[in-house]
């Protein structure tokens, strides 16, 4: 790892660690949780529902219920997704390859642990719990450890970018209950540090992997990361959330929604920033551009 040779990056890591120390809060006392959440308000901005722009669901009562269920899905994705990624980060803290970043990674794990708690807490308090994890029982092919580092931190960035897209918007949406605005907003605030670190770190990891192993894997890594982007977008469309909200033909509606031209444009928009980053960092030869979401 070349952090010692890159003072600007080392400085940034130290600055972000200092900011994490300064901004630290106790998640268990940070929020005032209301007793009830049944005032009929939108839990998710209607324009951020996965059926928005498709005309597939017209009944506003169903849409309002879908806003509730898709909020639960969104938070559940965070809980399950970040658990897997925290395990990967924890495996690396204080190992020789990551020793130089260990302090920052402690902040990362601590903050993600807080996020995981408050998103799950919301679902447990007001929605009967989170959706179960439906991740694969199979292990994907394992690459050399330096390429595995690239894959793990690329996945973290994709995950953070998706959340940040919605958090930054819904944290400001006054139609949402205050507690939801606050959860989105606090998450957005913390994630801006993680994204700043993640982008620079991924450039380092990628350069290091190429230096050690050459270009042989790069096409495979690009394919995998793009497939993961498509998978991440698809995970927003949960047929169980559709069914629970009262959407008729949930699986068909999901398929139609994911393939709808209006949605394709939104998928590209949600991922635009990270897609541009992957191209500019040389990790992608061509942009992802929304490919592979429709099934």
């Amino acid at each position, binding site marked *: 790892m070349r952090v010692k040779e890159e003072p600007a990056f080392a400085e940034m890591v130290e600055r972000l660690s200092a900011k994490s120390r300064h901004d630290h809060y106790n998640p268990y006392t940070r929020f005032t949780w209301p007793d009830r959440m049944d005032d009929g308000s939108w839990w998710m901005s209607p324009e951020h529902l996965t059926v928005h722009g498709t005309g597939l669901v017209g009944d506003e009562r169903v849409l309002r219920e879908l806003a509730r269920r898709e909020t639960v899905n969104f938070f559940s994705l965070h809980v399950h997704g970040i658990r897997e990624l925290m395990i990967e980060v924890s495996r690396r803290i204080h190992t020789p390859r990551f020793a130089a970043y260990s302090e920052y990674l402690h902040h990362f794990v601590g903050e993600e642990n807080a996020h995981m708690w408050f998103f799950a807490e919301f679902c447990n308090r007001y929605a009967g719990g989170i959706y*179960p*994890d*439906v*991740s*694969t*029982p*199979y*292990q*994907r*092919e394992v690459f050399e450890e330096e390429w595995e580092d690239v894959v793990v931190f690329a996945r973290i960035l994709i995950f953070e970018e998706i959340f940040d897209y919605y958090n930054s918007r819904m944290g400001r949406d006054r139609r949402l209950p205050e507690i939801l605005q606050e959860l989105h907003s606090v998450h957005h605030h913390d994630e801006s540090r993680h994204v700043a670190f993640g982008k620079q770190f991924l450039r380092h990891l990628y350069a290091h992997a190429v230096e050690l192993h050459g270009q042989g894997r790069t096409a495979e890594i690009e394919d995998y990361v793009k*497939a*993961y982007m*498509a*998978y991440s977008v*698809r*995970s927003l469309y949960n*047929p*169980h959330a559709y069914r629970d909200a009262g959407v008729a033909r949930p*699986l*068909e509606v*999901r398929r139609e929604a994911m393939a709808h031209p209006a949605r394709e444009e939104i998928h590209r928009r949600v991922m635009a920033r990270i897609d541009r980053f992957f191209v500019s960092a040389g990790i992608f030869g061509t942009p992802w551009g929304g490919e592979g979401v429709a*099934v």
Partner: protein
Amino acid sequence: MSRSDHTASPDMERVIDFLRRRNDALDSLDWDQDLVEDRILDSVGFVEFLFLLEELTGERIDPKRIDAMNFRTLNRINAAFLAGKAVP
């Protein structure tokens, strides 16, 4: 048991069609082909496949009760999820 022992039901045809669209290395005649080893069913495609099976069976599949072995071959998928359904 190979494919020749079966008449593929419309549901199994949809399973085969789904898997073939993901990877054309699927041999629809060999129902004992290892779908995981041959990378036909992979980690990012698994959830979609689960949703397809839910659609075909009309039942929610409890993720806690997923046995990875039941997804390894077409024969296993048929036996675990679809064999109880009548073949027209």
